């Protein structure tokens, strides 16, 4: 059986969670990654959902972050004021997962509009809690299936969720590092925090740095020690396929 894009991205993302104890994650790839990490590099890691569910034990795969199967049998369902105020803004989240329509070289994200905000070509859903995840998590991982210059852009059409560099320029000290890892179907971009650009640190087997640079809308820096990502191991694939998502709901 060949390795799907989801298996690849989930495996790679799970390895980055070693040491994390609380992760703020949405449904789909982030949940797959955390579930795999619980069985490999981070046995104690806990997923907190934006809906307020902590310690979920679903007996079926959830379809949304608020799915009834996440609530029944969970350890705690927090009021929204507690989830956003005490857990997220309180600084209790080590790693937040986010997606976006556009990302720039400092990891700032746009999920509001394509075009001008006042008369947009495309109205996107907006922040939801993304702005809060960015401002308050220790660090943020972004998983993007498609790596192309329209999404990896030199200039955002609109900055919904700013990283620490933009916050500092606005006179406010952020809690976390902002985006530290961007995991795509081509490789991994990384930065350590404020003041740094995202750099290409690893590519999937068979992908060249030049391919990634061409797929990126800015002049992407490449790490001196650029490495090749180890493909999902048999053990990782086995766990994903037989324990985490046996019905292949998200492992498409």
């Amino acid at each position: 059986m060949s390795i799907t894009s989801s298996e690849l991205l989930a495996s790679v993302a799970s390895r980055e969670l070693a040491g994390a104890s609380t992760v703020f994650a949405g449904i789909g790839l982030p949940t797959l990654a955390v579930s795999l990490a619980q069985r490999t590099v981070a046995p104690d890691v806990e997923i907190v959902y934006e809906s307020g569910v902590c310690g979920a034990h679903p007996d079926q795969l959830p379809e949304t972050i608020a799915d009834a199967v996440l609530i029944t049998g969970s350890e705690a369902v927090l009021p929204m004021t507690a989830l956003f105020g005490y857990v997220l803004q309180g600084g209790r989240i080590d790693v937040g997962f986010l997606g976006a329509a556009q990302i720039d070289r400092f990891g700032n994200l746009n999920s509001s509009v394509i075009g001008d905000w006042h008369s947009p070509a495309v109205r996107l859903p907006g922040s939801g809690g993304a702005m809060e995840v960015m401002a308050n998590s220790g660090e943020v991982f972004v998983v993007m299936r498609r790596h192309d210059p329209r999404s990896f852009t030199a200039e955002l059409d609109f900055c919904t969720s700013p990283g620490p560099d933009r916050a500092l320029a606005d006179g406010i000290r952020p809690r976390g590092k902002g985006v530290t890892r961007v995991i795509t179907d081509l490789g991994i971009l990384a930065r350590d925090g404020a003041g740094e650009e995202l750099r290409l640190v690893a590519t999937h087997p068979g992908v060249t740095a030049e391919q990634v640079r061409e797929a990126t809308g800015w002049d992407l820096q490449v790490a001196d020690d650029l490495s090749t990502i180890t493909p999902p191991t048999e053990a990782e694939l086995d766990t994903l396929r037989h324990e985490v998502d046996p019905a292949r709901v998200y492992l498409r």
Partner: protein
Amino acid sequence: MSQVGKSDKTTSMRDAIAEFVTDGATVSLEGFTHLIPTAAGHEIIRQGRRDLTIARMTADVVTDQLIAGDCVSRLISSFVGNSTAGSLGELRRRVEAGALAFEEYSHYGMICRYLAGAQRLPFYPLRSYAGSDVPGINPGIRKVTSPYPAPDGGEEQIYVVPPLNPDVTIVQAQRADRSGNTQVWGLTGIQAEAVYAARKAIVVVEEVVADEVVRSDPNRTVIPAHAVDAVVECPRGAHPAFVQGYYDRDGEFYREWSRISGDPDRLRTWLDEWVLGTADHSEYVAKLGEQRWSDLAVGEAWSEPVNYGRRL
């Protein structure tokens, strides 16, 4: 020493909407994926309300329907999308055409607006928005300087949002007693704050229950009677959203909505048939058919009771 009088606030959906939702009003409809007051939204469309400002964190299907019903001139929201199932066709068309005023916030920005409203505060501070383009397009989001030194000894600034005080807040819940003591389990969302922030509040419930049911577990009461003006019993009133322990989310409907709302003619036909063409929510429920409700039925997972104790 017990309370003697106890007012009965139960009424019909028709009367509740007619009395409390007026043209031009600011109406908050809350419920985060769970317990969305869909039936109330449909009744607003049936009664032809106009020029409403709708406040709703996750503006989803019912918001799109209200917009398509020409009820809404302004939207205050932090997420305008059809959950994981696609787009809101009418909302997107109108925003992209500049035909719907939109106040954009983040989720916590909306939560803090309700907190300020409920607490009668002039503003509420939060650690979001620093460096975002959102304050640039939303002049309601401002900055305050803290009167305490920052950790580094310098001056500290923080963004604030203004209070949101809806004319009426409408929420859906599992059950209430006749005077409005409202009990919710599963996701409780921002409903209590949205109710306390409002001038008037309508609670729509799956069941109006006997006083004794509520009083056996007072910690389950998320909204007390003194904050409620009308109690409407409307079973299955959240569809296509779910009600924990009562019925499941109708995922097929959400996926279908992206297709319906993507085509203005199809959307018009849908509204005519399902909302304007039904006299009330019980007709809508019946029209969905028994097979559909049987597919959404849920099994049992009962909480273990706790002892509140009694003085001997």
